[in-house]
Structures are given as structure tokens and as C-alpha cells.
């Protein structure tokens, strides 16, 4: 009899939907049906039991092909690459659990590595702005239950967070928002008339790269000062209309996305968004929230801040003395300056999502990918180590975009023999300790990895 598992968490985006119902086969090996998930979340569950899953680590051979090796051999290779590198970079962690992130941080500290996560190319700018200007935020539950004005600025949840609008912001009926969509004003600000803009009461087509100007105009108008006839492509009357709606709101939330972080200005765009939120709190209650991308990309920020005091771009080359300086210790900048001599791609796909120039630089050195699936990073790696899919095959803690921790469960077992990120990094850490002990016993000579590129 197939079994229905309720209240399952979704390992796709930062909304962390935890109301999925997953039906698994009698033998507990196949996922038959996924209810309540968006199109992308649905795909993750069904893809997990696909025939194309890699079940053993694969080591690149001199002819360019991959050869299956054991987990013991993979752990040994990975540990030796880290041990021999002067400044390895361990990057990723968008798609794994907090337990795996903590174990990886232990490895990074032992190896004297730079430890970075996908925020580095995503909401890293938000961290910089929050350091400078604070974070007047709330939980998604507060937005659902209280907010009567919602602003999406440079964010397109209809595509990137498909259930955000229905679970928390626009459509749900909350404690003080019993009329749901009817009781809310929706404002969308974006250079593109997106599918999210389709459900807006007011859409402002801001000129791309001029978000800062428009925020500034909002702040100026909110304080009662004159603004020009047009700012960033938006007419003065329209700006004044939106400012009045904002000032008269009972409770408002600004959700912002990559439109701010990826454009000219980066952290300064987020900084002024926070300042606008602060200004609006002179009139009523306003909050702001980053639309975090992956389901647990908030996790490394929480875990590593607790461990080392910094959320991303951690330079641990001095082992237990952490240092963070984006621009200097950020993955793409390190790659472009050729400052790292080994690369670990963990639970992400730098091969597809880094600018190709950065990929070329990183590929000059040993590249190891830790990921359940075949991706661009795995296909250019020297070593690909498959792991279980968190939220499907591996349980663990994840942090939702509003920093609320959620315990994810597993619904099926991973393919036979496939281990979790946490176990993998614990084993690499143990092997690193052994290598250090062996080296201390032998003197200064270093062990050489048996793999192809690692011999360079």
C-alpha cells in the first residue's frame, strides 16, 4: 500500500513550503506523487529517483573520461587536495542542510580554506547593507497575518518563488487580513512587466539600474520635500501616489530581489531600501525582507555566523582566526585574481552560474564537486562525489528566507551506498587529521594525491 507522508518540506526555494504531501511506493523506494509543490519543487522530488542518478564517486582519468571509485578513495583524494593546497576555496551550500554546512566549516578550518556560499553571487550585497543599516524585518507569518500593502521590488516570485504570493504575501487570508487579496494593495517595481506585475494594483517600470534614484525619490517625498517631475522613468504623480499608500498602510512589507543586488550600486540599493523602510516607520509599521533564493541559503549565514562571526566570504587561511572582506575574500574575485589553488563546489553549480571567465580561472586547479546530480560543475570536475538529496533522502535543519529554522525530513532512502554531505565532510575532516599526523611524524614532506590534476 503506498504511503502518504504529510507536512514535507520542499528543497527548492527560500519559501521552504512545508505543506507538501508525498506519496511513496510500497517498498519506500519510489516517489509516486507530490501534492502542493510548485512545478520546480515537484521536479526535484521526481528527479531524485530517476535512473540517471550517480551512485559512486567518479574520478577524471587522463583521457578525460570518468572512472567510478569508492567513497574511501574519494575521501582520500579530496583530503589530499585540501591538504596540499595553499588556499583552497570551498563554495556553495545553497542546497544542503545546516548539519552539512557545519561539518564543511570544520573541514575548511582544518584545511585553512576560504569558505563561501551562494550568497556571494546572490544576496551578499544584502549582508553588506544590513551590516551598515540594520534589518527592520519580520517573519513571513507576520506579513501573512498583518500586511495590507506589499511591495515587490526587483523580485519576480511568480518565477523564482512560485508559492510565495499564495502562502504569505498576496492571496492568503491571515488573522488581521481576513479578506486576503481583496484587502491588500500590491505594488510591483521592476524594469520588466513580469508575471508578478500581472497581479499588481500598481506597477512602476523603473529604468534598469536606477533603483537607487527611485528609492531616494520615495524617501524625499515621504519627508514632504519636492521631487523632480520624473525619476528613473517614473512620473512624480505616480511616486507621490505610491508614497501616500505606503504612509497610510497598516502594515507593509518590501520584498526585494536580485534586481537590487545584481545591478549597479549593489549593496547601496539595498541600503537605501532599508532606509526607506526605516523612514516609513515614522508613519506606520513597515518591514523589509530579502527574497532568498535556495531553500537553505539562509542556513550558512546562520551557521557560520554562529561558528565564526561572519555569514559568507570567510577567509579561514589562518585557521581559527576568521576574516571576511567581500571583494577580497569573495569567490568570483578570488577566482579572477587566481588566488585559490583548489576548488570545492558543494551543493550548487558554479559551472553554470558563475561567469564563464571565473570558471576558466578556477579550472586551472583541482576542482571537486559534491552534489547529488549531474550538473555543469560535475562535468568539468576532477572528482565528483554524489550525496543524498536533502529534504528527499536526507533530513536536517534548514533556514527559511525569514530566518525561521525548519526541521526537514526524508521521504525515501538515498540510493544504496550514497552518503550525506555531513558524513562526507566528517570523513574528509578525519582523513585531514590523519594526514596532518602522518606529516608531523615524517617531517615537512607532503603527501601527493593519486588523482590526475592533483599531481600538478
Amino acid at each position, binding site marked *: 500500500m503506498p504511503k502518504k507522508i504529510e507536512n514535507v518540506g520542499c528543497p527548492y526555494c527560500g519559501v521552504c513550503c512545508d505543506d507538501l504531501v508525498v506519496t511513496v511506493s510500497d517498498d519506500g523506494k519510489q516517489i509516486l506523487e507530490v501534492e502542493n509543490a510548485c512545478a*520546480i519543487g515537484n521536479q526535484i522530488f521526481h528527479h531524485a529517483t530517476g535512473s540517471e542518478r550517480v551512485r559512486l564517486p567518479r574520478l577524471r582519468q587522463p583521457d578525460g573520461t570518468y572512472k567510478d571509485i569508492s567513497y574511501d578513495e574519494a575521501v582520500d583524494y579530496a583530503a589530499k587536495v585540501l591538504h596540499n593546497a595553499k588556499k583552497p576555496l570551498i563554495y556553495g551550500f545553497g542546497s544542503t542542510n545546516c548539519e552539512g554546512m557545519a561539518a564543511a566549516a570544520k573541514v575548511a578550518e582544518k584545511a585553512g580554506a576560504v569558505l563561501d556560499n551562494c550568497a556571494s553571487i546572490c544576496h551578499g550585497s544584502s549582508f553588506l547593507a544590513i551590516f551598515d543599516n540594520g534589518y527592520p524585518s519580520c517573519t513571513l507569518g507576520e506579513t501573512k497575518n498583518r500586511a495590507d500593502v506589499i511591495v515587490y521590488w526587483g523580485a519576480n516570485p511568480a*518565477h523564482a518563488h512560485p508559492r510565495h504570493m499564495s502562502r504569505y504575501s498576496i492571496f492568503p487570508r491571515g488573522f488581521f487580513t481576513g479578506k486576503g487579496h481583496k484587502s491588500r494593495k500590491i505594488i510591483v517595481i521592476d524594469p*520588466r*512587466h513580469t508575471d508578478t506585475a500581472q497581479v499588481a494594483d500598481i506597477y512602476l517600470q523603473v529604468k*534598469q539600474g536606477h533603483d537607487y534614484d527611485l528609492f531616494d525619490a520615495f524617501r524625499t517625498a515621504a519627508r514632504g520635500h519636492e521631487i523632480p517631475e520624473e525619476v528613473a522613468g517614473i512620473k512624480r504623480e505616480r511616486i507621490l501616489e505610491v508614497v501616500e499608500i505606503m504612509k497610510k498602510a497598516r502594515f507593509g512589507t518590501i520584498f526585494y530581489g536580485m534586481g537590487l543586488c545584481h545591478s549597479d550600486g549593489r549593496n547601496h540599493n539595498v541600503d537605501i531600501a532599508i532606509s526607506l523602510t526605516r523612514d516609513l516607520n515614522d508613519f506606520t509599521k513597515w518591514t523589509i525582507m530579502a527574497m532568498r533564493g535556495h531553500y537553505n541559503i539562509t542556513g550558512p549565514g546562520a551557521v557560520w555566523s554562529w561558528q565564526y562571526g561572519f555569514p559568507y566570504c570567510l577567509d579561514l587561511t589562518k585557521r581559527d582566526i576568521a576574516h571576511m572582506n567581500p571583494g577580497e575574500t569573495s569567490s568570483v574575485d578570488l577566482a579572477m585574481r587566481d588566488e585559490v589553488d583548489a576548488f570545492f563546489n558543494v551543493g550548487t553549480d558554479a559551472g553554470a552560474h558563475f*561567469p564563464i571567465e571565473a570558471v576558466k580561472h578556477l579550472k586551472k586547479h583541482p576542482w571537486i564537486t559534491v552534489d547529488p546530480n*549531474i550538473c555543469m560543475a560535475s562535468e568539468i570536475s576532477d572528482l565528483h562525489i554524489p550525496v543524498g538529496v536533502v529534504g528527499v533522502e536526507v533530513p536536517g535543519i534548514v533556514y527559511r528566507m525569514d530566518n525561521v529554522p525548519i526541521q526537514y525530513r526524508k521521504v525515501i532512502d538515498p540510493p544504496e551506498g550514497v552518503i550525506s554531505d555531513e558524513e562526507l565532510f566528517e570523513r574528509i575532516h578525519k582523513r585531514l587529521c590523519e594526514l596532518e599526523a602522518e606529516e608531523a611524524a615524517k617531517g615537512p614532506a607532503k603527501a601527493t594525491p593519486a588523482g590526475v590534476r592533483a599531481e600538478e
Partner: protein
Amino acid sequence: MANRITLNMITQRSIEEGVAMEKGKTTPEYFEACSIIEMHDDDVRALGLVPNQLVRVTSECGSVVVKAVRGRQSLYPGLAFIPQGVWANQVVPPRTQATGEPQYSGFPVTVEPVNGERRKSALELVQGAVGLWRGDQ
């Protein structure tokens, strides 16, 4: 009609890219979801493009051939969009304004029609960039 125009490029997620990415980046779905460019009708007309014609997009740091399609989400004239992914990242400048974040949105590109060229697969682009491409496998 111009042979080439300069546009302001942005790259962001599309749901088609998200679904295809989770299915696999070597699938035809990912290829069709990501190897495209969306532009305003005025710019399409300026280039004299017919629907689904291939164009070459060139930035300060690279070049890629993609298919010009009419998107559901409209842009204003002068703005162009390639969904995030392998094709977009052939032209995304790695400069970060000292924040770590590359210039994914808001960089100049030239767009021109091409004849006799094809869109490369994701593997061909990425493996080719690092000297691992061995032809269709």
C-alpha cells in the same frame, strides 16, 4: 534596418529555467529554456529579425549564439533579457564592484543576426571553455 544594435542586458531566473534545471542541465528542456534572448519589438524590428531567428550576443568579455523569442514578460526598448544559466554566463562580466557579485544585470551587449551558425549545448559551452569538450558524446 541595423546590422547590429547595442542593448542593456539583464539575466534573471525564469520558471522554465528552474523546472528544466532541476530536471537536468543536459536536457533539451534546459537548452530551450535558457538559450534564448527576449527583446522589445522595436529592437526586433530594428534588427529585421523573424521569429526564432538566431542572434549573436557579445559583451565586453564574451559572445554566445541564442534564439530571439517573444517573451511573455515585456521589456522596454533598449533592454534585453537572457534567462540565468549557461548561455547568459558566457557574456556576464565577472566584475563585482568589490562585493563579490558579478554584473548579472545591467551591462552593454551588441546583438546581431547570424546565418550558418548554431546554438551550442550547455556541455559544449562549459566543457569547451575549459578544454574538456570531446564532441557530441
